[in-house]
């Protein structure tokens, strides 16, 4: 089924500036796999070399942290929204 993944600003360069991407999948893992299949540059930003979600990338299914709902095995349904909330460095963002 098709769900919506919201792409945060720091990752939009890797989705052709798309703010949200529709993907298919039965669970969060399949949905994220669908995302990096259509936008392969995202892989290194979301996953470590051994395929684990990076610690500074938090993924929320309908505002629930997937770390506490079953990680990538968390089932999804078609009205769901997956939000990726990365760590953002910005704040004063001049030259440092």
């Amino acid at each position: 089924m098709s769900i919506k993944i919201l792409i945060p600003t720091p990752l939009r360069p890797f989705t052709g500036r798309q703010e949200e991407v529709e993907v298919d999948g039965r669970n969060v893992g399949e949905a994220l796999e669908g995302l990096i299949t259509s936008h392969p540059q995202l892989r290194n930003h979301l996953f470590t070399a051994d395929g684990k979600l990076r610690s500074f990338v938090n993924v929320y299914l309908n505002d629930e942290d997937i770390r506490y709902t079953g990680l990538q095995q968390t089932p999804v349904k078609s009205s769901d929204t997956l939000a990726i909330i990365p760590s953002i460095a910005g704040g004063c963002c001049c030259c440092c």
Partner: protein
Amino acid sequence: MPEAPNPGLHSASAGPSRCHEKSPPERQSGAVGTSPQPPWERYSRQILFAPLGEAGQSELRASHVALVGCGALGSAQAGLLARAGVGCLTIIDRDYVEASNLQRQSLFEEEDARESLPKAVAAARRLHALNSEVEVRAQVADLTPENLSALIGDAAVILDGTDNFETRYLLNDFAVEQRRPWIYGAVVGSQGVTFTVLPEETACLECVFGSQPGGMTESCDTAGVLNWVVQYIAAVQVAECVKLLVGARDALRRTVLSADLWRNDFRQLQPPPRDPDCRVCGRRDFMHLRGERRPHITLCGRDSVQIHEHDRAMDFGQLSQRLAPHGRVRHNAHVLKFWLDASSGGSGLEMTLFPDGRAMIKGTTDPAVARSLYARYIGS
């Protein structure tokens, strides 16, 4: 013009800094004969808000807040806190004002950029004009494991206005060790995120983002940032800060707030519970406070390198004379700028030097180039 505290790494007092002690509000108009209005008139609209009231205003007046970073978020936070009558603000920033800051860094003016004033100094001037009752401590310094305790002093709450994860992880260590709340905030593009770390109550930064600082390298330098998202996140940080200062802990927001003001997407996300095995808040192992991750030269934005303080007193007058044959030099009491001539091998290189010896070198991302430039013209 009020004299700002002496800028520099060692400008903070050695012991914990103390702001003025709690005292009853000066509410009797007759008590201050020269004042055109009862002193608390300026806060009347805030005092009318029942959860604050006069008792809350007294608490704010007796409070000390530290703002780490005085760029976009820090400017907005400081302006709000000063107007609200928070008695003492410590402003810590290592940088100076540039024209490209003015779009979103609301405390600064064109003249500050022309003078290349350190942001903490420019902020202190402006804040004094906004509310002269507020004690502002300007600290022109890079926050380090060695100086943060002296710089932050006894501040009850620490607000994040930084632009990098090294400093945030350092702050997180310090706040958890000291059991003091700190309020994370970050903005990029039209998006912002904030959450409040309450040591021993909530998850800390490392519980939420893990131990690996950084990763998402796109910052405001490349993705830009809109001034209204800055104001939005800063306002939420200040709201939580005020609640903490007046003891309204039941009113605190305990979610991770993520907002994209362009897309009108507002989310309150459940933070993870405290991780009992978290290095910082579980095992109380304060690696960043011990300085184990700290390099002496850091890349700084797209095109700059910072050489951390050498702890050497600079005589800007003497140095200007020495550097003049090699390029254009300009200095004031706070900062020396040096544009190296192409004939001296420095096409496009610009050095900004602070009184404690710290330098920012623009025009290169190569630490070796920066180091050799510093060694050649300033000293090794």
